[in-house]
C-alpha cells in the first residue's frame, strides 16, 4: 500500500475516535452487591454469587461463589421480590441481567411500574410480556378477557440468548403531585434501552402495572426486582436519583458586537447593542454566518455541589483545522471560566462548585463564517449536578427538516447491501451487510475478509446513503450490534503461537455467488489458498453458522481460522464458548480442538487450525446470541 494512503487512513481513524460522545461526569451510585444487606430483607430465593452459568437449553446451571452478582433461583414455596433500601423518584438506572431459558422477571420502578424481563430470544413478534416491554395494567372492571390494558411491547426485540449478559438502561420520571397530594403528571418512561437499542421512548403510564407491589402512586418508592416468576441474574446496578430541584436560567441579556474574530476580542470589543432574551440563541441582528454575543443572566442553583456544564456551538464542525476555526465560545460563572469551546470542535465540558442560590453567568460566543454541512446556529448549554438531572437550558423551539426513514427490508430471501458501515468508530468502505430471513444479520469487510459484526432484528437503515446526496453513505444496522474480531478470518501462520495478522499480504476479494435463498457464497484468495465463505442460519435465526472452505496449492501450509476475540473466552460445561464476558457464544461442531490464547493487543483469541484433507479443508462454527 502507498504511504500516503496509509497516512490518510490513519487520519480518518483518529478523527473518528475523537468524535465519540462524552458520557456524563456525574458518577452513578453503585450497589456493590457484596451482600444482601444492601436490600430490604427478602426470601432465600435471592443470593449473592460471583458468577452464574445458565445452560442455553435449560440444563443444569452452575454458580461460582463470590460477590458482584445477584441471583434469584426459584425455591419450592416462598419466593419473594427484592426491594432496595433506598426509595427513588426520578431515576436513571442501568443494570445487566441474564435470563435462564424460558424465565420471567421484571424491574419495577418505585415498586409500581414494570419493565419486563423475559427470555424473549429470537421472538419475532414481541408483546407486552416480552423483555423490554412495559408490562400491562389490570382492571377487573373492564370485563372478562379485557382486564389487561396499556401494555407496551418493545419497539424492537433485541433480546440475547439465555445465559448471556444483557444491558438495560432506564430513564424514568416519577409521577408529580400537587400540595394536596393530587397527581398532576403521570409517571413516564423517558427512555428504555435494552442492549443499547432504544425499546421504549416517552411512554407515560397512567398507573401501576398489574401485580405491582403498591397499588397507590407516590412521589417515592423502592426499586423492586420480581422474584416469584422465574430465575434471573443481575449485576452492575447503577443509578442516579434526582430530586425536584432544577437549575434555571433567568433574566438574560444579550450584548452583541460587530467585529469579534477571536475569543480574546470580547474583552476589548465595543458592544453594538443590547437586548433582553428568553432563549439561548443569537437573536440580535446579524448575518447567519457572522455574529457574536455575550449572554448574561442569573443561574438559580437548587443545592450546594459540583455542577457540570456542556456547551455545544452547532456551527463549529468536529473536523476544523486548528488554524482555521469558524467560531468559539466561553462560559463564565461568577466571573470564573468554566467551559471553553476552542473551535476545533464545537463541544466542551467544564465543572465548578456552586452553592444554592443565584449565580452570575456569562456566555461569550462568535461565528466568523459558515460551513454548509454545519448549518445550525444552535447554542446548547446543558447542566447537571448531584441530584439534578441533565437539562438543556432555555432551548428555543426548533425541529429539523422532516426526513422519512429509508430501510432495506428482508422478506423471504436474504438481502445484501454494499456500502459503508461503522466498525469500532471507523468507517469501513468496502463492506457488505447481509440480512437473513430469520432476522440474523451480519457485516463483512470484503476487502480484508473480516467479519465485522452481527445483529438480530431488522436489517439496515439506508437513509444516510439514499436521502439527498447521501453525505455519509453509511448503512445503519437496525438492531443490537455485536462487534466481532474485525480481523482476517483466515491466516497462514508459521505456528500456533504466531500473532494474528492485522492484514494479509496479497489478500483479494473475488466476488460472490448467491445461494437459492439469496445469501452469498463469498470467494477470496490469499497467495496459495482460495477461500469460500458462507453463512447459514440455524434454529430459525437463533444461530448463525459461519463456514470457511479452503483449497490450497501446497498441503504444507498451516492455515488457522480466527473464531473469536474478546476480553474473556470461557469454555462452558455444555461445550459452548462464551466470548467477551458472556456477550455471545461460539458453538463448534464435531471434534475440533480450538486454541484459546492471548492476543497481541491484550485480549483473548479463540483460533482453530484447519485440518486439510488432501488439498482442501473446512471450518464451521456458529455464533449464538
Amino acid at each position, binding site marked *: 500500500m*502507498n504511504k*500516503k*494512503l496509509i497516512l*490518510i487512513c490513519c487520519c*480518518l481513524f483518529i478523527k473518528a475516535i475523537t468524535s465519540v460522545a462524552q458520557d456524563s461526569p456525574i458518577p452513578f451510585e453503585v450497589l456493590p452487591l457484596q451482600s444482601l444487606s444492601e436490600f430490604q430483607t427478602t426470601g432465600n430465593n435471592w443470593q449473592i454469587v460471583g458468577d452464574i452459568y445458565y445452560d442455553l437449553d435449560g440444563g443444569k446451571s452452575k454458580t461460582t461463589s463470590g460477590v458482584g452478582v445477584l441471583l434469584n433461583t426459584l425455591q419450592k414455596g416462598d419466593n419473594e421480590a427484592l426491594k432496595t433500601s433506598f426509595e427513588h423518584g426520578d431515576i436513571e438506572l442501568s443494570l445487566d441481567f441474564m435470563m435462564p431459558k424460558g424465565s420471567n422477571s421484571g424491574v419495577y420502578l418505585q415498586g409500581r411500574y414494570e419493565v419486563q424481563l423475559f427470555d424473549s430470544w429470537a421472538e419475532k413478534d414481541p408483546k407486552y410480556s416480552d423483555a423490554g416491554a412495559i408490562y400491562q395494567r389490570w382492571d377487573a372492571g373492564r370485563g372478562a378477557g379485557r382486564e389487561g390494558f396499556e401494555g407496551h411491547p418493545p419497539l424492537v426485540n433485541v433480546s440475547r440468548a439465555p445465559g448471556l449478559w444483557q444491558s438495560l438502561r432506564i430513564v424514568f420520571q416519577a409521577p408529580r403531585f400537587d400540595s394536596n397530594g393530587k397527581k398532576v403528571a403521570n409517571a413516564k418512561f423517558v427512555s428504555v434501552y435494552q442492549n443499547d437499542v432504544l425499546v421504549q421512548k416517552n411512554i407515560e403510564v397512567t398507573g401501576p402495572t398489574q401485580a405491582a407491589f403498591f397499588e397507590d402512586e407516590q412521589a417515592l418508592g423502592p426499586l423492586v426486582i420480581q422474584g416469584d416468576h422465574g430465575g434471573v441474574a443481575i449485576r452492575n446496578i447503577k443509578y442516579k436519583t434526582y430530586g425536584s430541584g432544577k437549575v434555571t436560567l433567568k433574566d438574560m441579556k444579550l450584548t452583541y458586537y460587530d467585529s469579534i474574530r477571536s475569543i480574546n476580542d470580547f474583552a476589548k470589543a465595543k458592544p453594538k447593542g443590547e437586548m433582553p432574551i428568553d432563549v439561548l440563541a443569537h437573536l440580535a*441582528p*446579524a*448575518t*447567519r*454566518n*457572522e455574529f457574536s454575543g455575550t449572554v448574561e443572566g442569573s443561574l438559580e442553583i437548587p443545592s450546594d455541589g459540583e455542577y457540570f456544564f456542556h456547551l455545544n456551538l452547532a456551527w463549529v*464542525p468536529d*473536523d*476544523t*483545522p486548528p488554524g*482555521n476555526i469558524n467560531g468559539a465560545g466561553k462560559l463564565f460563572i461568577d466571573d470564573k471560566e468554566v467551559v471553553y469551546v476552542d473551535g476545533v470542535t464545537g463541544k466542551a465540558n467544564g465543572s465548578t462548585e456552586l452553592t444554592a442560590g443565584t449565580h452570575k453567568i456569562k456566555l461569550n460566543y462568535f461565528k466568523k*463564517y*459558515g*460551513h*454548509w*454541512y454545519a*448549518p445550525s446556529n444552535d447554542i446548547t448549554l446543558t447542566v447537571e449536578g448531584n441530584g439534578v438531572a441533565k437539562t438543556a437550558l432555555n432551548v428555543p423551539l426548533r425541529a429539523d427538516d422532516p426526513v422519512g426513514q429509508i430501510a432495506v427490508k428482508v422478506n423471504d430471501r436474504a*438481502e*445484501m*447491501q*454494499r*456500502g*459503508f458501515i461503522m466498525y469500532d468508530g471507523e*468507517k469501513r*468502505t*468496502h463492506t*457488505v451487510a447481509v440480512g437473513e430471513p430469520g432476522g440474523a444479520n451480519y457485516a463483512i469487510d470484503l*476487502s480484508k475478509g473480516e467479519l465485522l459484526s452481527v445483529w438480530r432484528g431488522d436489517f439496515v437503515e*439506508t437513509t444516510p*446513503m*439514499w436521502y*439527498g*446526496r*447521501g*453525505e*455519509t*453513505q453509511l448503512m445503519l444496522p437496525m438492531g443490537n450490534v455485536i462487534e466481532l474480531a474485525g480481523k482476517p478470518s483466515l491466516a497462514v501462520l508459521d505456528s500456533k503461537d504466531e500473532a494474528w495478522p492485522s492484514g494479509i499480504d496479497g489478500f483479494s*476479494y*473475488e*466476488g*460472490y*455467488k*448467491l445461494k437459492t435463498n439469496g445469501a*452469498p457464497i463469498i470467494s477470496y484468495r490469499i497467495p496459495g489458498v482460495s477461500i469460500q465463505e458462507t453463512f447459514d442460519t440455524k434454529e430459525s435465526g437463533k444461530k448463525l453458522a459461519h463456514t470457511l472452505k479452503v483449497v490450497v496449492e501446497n498441503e504444507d501450509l498451516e492455515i488457522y481460522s480466527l473464531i473469536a476475540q474478546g476480553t474473556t473466552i470461557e469454555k462452558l460445561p455444555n461445550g459452548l464458548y462464551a466470548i467477551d464476558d458472556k456477550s455471545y457464544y461460539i458453538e463448534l461442531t464435531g471434534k475440533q480442538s480450538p486454541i484459546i490464547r492471548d492476543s497481541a493487543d491484550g485480549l483473548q483469541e479463540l483460533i482453530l487450525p484447519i485440518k486439510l484433507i488432501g488439498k482442501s479443508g473446512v471450518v464451521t462454527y456458529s455464533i449464538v446470541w
Partner: protein
Amino acid sequence: MKNLMNFKNTKGFAFALACLVIGQVELKAQDKALMMVPETEDDFYKMISLPVPEDVILEVGGMATLPDGSLAICTRRGEVWIVSSPSISGSEKPVYKKFASGLHEPLGLAYKDGDIYVTQRSELTRLSDTDGDGQADVYDKIYSWPLSGNYHEYSYGPTFLPNGNMLVTLNVGWSNSLGHGVSLVPWRGWALEITPDGEMIPFAAGMRSPAGYGMNAEGDFFYTENQGDWVGSGRISHVEKGDFLGNAESLEWSDLSGSPVTLKKEDIPNTGEPMYDVAQRVSGLKAPAIWLPHGILGISTSGFLNDNTEGKFGPFANQVFVGDQGQSNIARVDFEKINGVYQGVVFPFREGFSSGILRMVWGNDASMFVGMTSRGWSSTGKELFSLQRLVWTGRMPFEMKTIKSKPDGFEIEFTEPVDKELAKDPANYQVTGFTYKYQAQYGSPVINNEPCDIIGVVVSEDGMKARLLVDNLRLGYIHEIKAEGVKSTEGKPLLHNVGYYTLNNFGAGEKIDQSPFLAARHEHEMLMKAVADSAAKAQADAEAKAKAAEAKKQAAATTPTAPKLAKNTTTMPAAWDGKADVTINMGTKPGLKFDPAQVQVKAGSKVKLVFQNVDDMLHNFVIVMPGTAIEVGEAAMKLGLEGQQKDYIPNTSKVLVNTKLLQPSESATIYFIAPTEPGEYTYVCTVPGHFYTMQGTLKVVK
C-alpha cells in the same frame, strides 16, 4: 435594399427606412399566419414517458440495451432492473424485473457476451445469470479501488475497448472544510483501464466529475466533465492514455507505479488563462475537444451517446448526443479531427425532459431511451427520477446539421436547402468568440468575448451549405455561430439557430478570395454610415428633448423625492443614518433551496440582506415581482454568453433587487427598500437550471 440608394435627401431616407422596417414586420406577420403554428422540437422528436411501478425507485445510474431489446438499468439504490418491451405506445406498459440488488450506488452499466457489468463506488463488477432464471446469481469482482469514504467519490463506467479491456472514470471527492475537490486516495480523478481478469492500468488523470463517457463513430474514447474547480464550463475531452485533462487534484498520484502521467500538481499554473493557452506550454495537459457554454447548453454535462442508427433517428448519423442533469436537456455534437486533435460544434437538440439526465442509450428500434435522476442536486425537470423515450417522428427538422472549420471561417451544412438570398447575406449571421478561465476556483465567467466579423458568405449550388468567411477567429476559443436570419426554401426558420464551435485547429482546404466581398462591403459601409449618422442625430435630438422634459418635471415637483436605490446596492445608503429597519440572513441548502424559504418584511422598510452561499455551486439572490420568477429566469437564460458576466441578472423591471453571482462559501450584503405594495414577492436564484426550483417567498405586509 438597392432601391434605397436613390434617395438623396437623408431626412427622407430615414423616414423611408422606418416605413420599410414596419412594412417588413407586417409582411412577416402575414407569412406566419400562412405557415400555421411554429414548429417545435416536439414536432420532430416525440418524448414518451415510461411508466415505472410504484414501488421501484428507478434513479437511473447506468443503462444498456440488451440484444432482445430490453433495457438493463442500474439505480442509485443499488438495483439492476430489466425493462422488457420498453418501446411502448398507447396504454401498453413495459415489464420490470429485478435482476440484481444490493450494489453500492452503481453509476454505469454495460452489457457484453451475456453478462452485465456495473461500476459500483468501489468496484467494477460482472453480474451473471448462470441458472437462467432472469436474476443474477454471480457477482464477480473484476477490480476494486480504494475509497476514502467521501460522498463525492462517484465511479462511472465501464466502456469496453476494442481489446476487451474496460475503462472506468472516477470522481474526486469534495472537501467540505476546504471548499473544493480533493483526491484523497488513489485513483480519484483518474480513468483506469481494467483487463477482464482484473489487471489495472492507470490510463489518464485530471478528471473532476466524469459522469459521461463513451466512444464516437471512429471508436475514440471521450468523457464529459462538469463545471467546478479547474473546469470553467462543461466540456467534452478526447481521452488517450497518459493524458492529463485539467483537474490538478488527481496529480497527487502521478508518482505511483504504472502512472502514464508524469505531471505534478505544482506543474499546473493557476493563472486563470484560457486552458488552451496553458496547454500550449504545459506538455501533457490536453484542452477539451468541445466546450459546452455553461447555462446555455447545460450546467452539468452527463451521458454521451454516438448516433449509430444510420439515419433511423433522423439526419444526425454519427453525431453524438450529450445529456445534462441540471437542465434536463440534450445537446448534439459533431466532432472533426484536425491534425490529430478533436474539435467541433455543439447545438441545442431537445429540452424538457422530466428529471436530471444521466444516461442515454439506443433502443433496438433506434429510439433514444433517457434515464434520469435528480436526487441531491435538483434539476429543471422536477421528477426525482424518470425514464423517457425520444422517438424521431420521421419529419425533417430544419437545422444546422453541422459546422466545419475552414482555414478562413466556417462551413455550415443544413438539413434542408436554404433560401439562398437570405443565406448569402452576412447580416443574417453573427459570430462571437469567447473562452473561460482555467483556474482552481469554481467555474468561470465568459472571458475575452469579441465579435467576429463576417466578411462574406458563399452558399453552395444546392443550397445545403453556407461558407462563412470570418475574421478574428482565435484558436482555443469557443465561437458562437448564430444564423437567425436564415430560412429554408419553404420559409421555415431554423429549429435551433445557434451552434458553439470549439476551435483547436483551422480546417484544411482552399481559402476563398475575400476581395469581392471587401469591395462590396466598402460601398455598403459608406451607405450605412450615412444612415447611422442620421439615425444618431435623431436619437440625440429625442434624448435632449426627453431630458429637458424630465428637468422641467423635477423642478415642478414640490418636494425632492428620495433617490431610488440601485437594484444591487452593496453599501448602506447614507440617508439610512447607519441603520436598517431589519436585517435578513439568507442562506442556501443542498438541493437548490433557499434557507429560509419565506421571509416577511414591512412594506417600505429599509432592509439589509446578507446572502451566504453555503452550497457547492454558484448562486445569486434576486427579488422579482409576484409570479415572475420563471419569466425572469428565462430572461436570464437568454442572456446567453453574457449570462455569467451579468450575474444572470436580465435587464427587466420585473427584477426589483439582486445580489451578484456568488461562489461557493461566498457572501454578499445588499440594501433595499421593501416594496411599498403589500403582496407575495418571489426571491429566486436566476442561474440557468436553478430558477425553476430555487425560489422563496418575500411576504410584504402593511
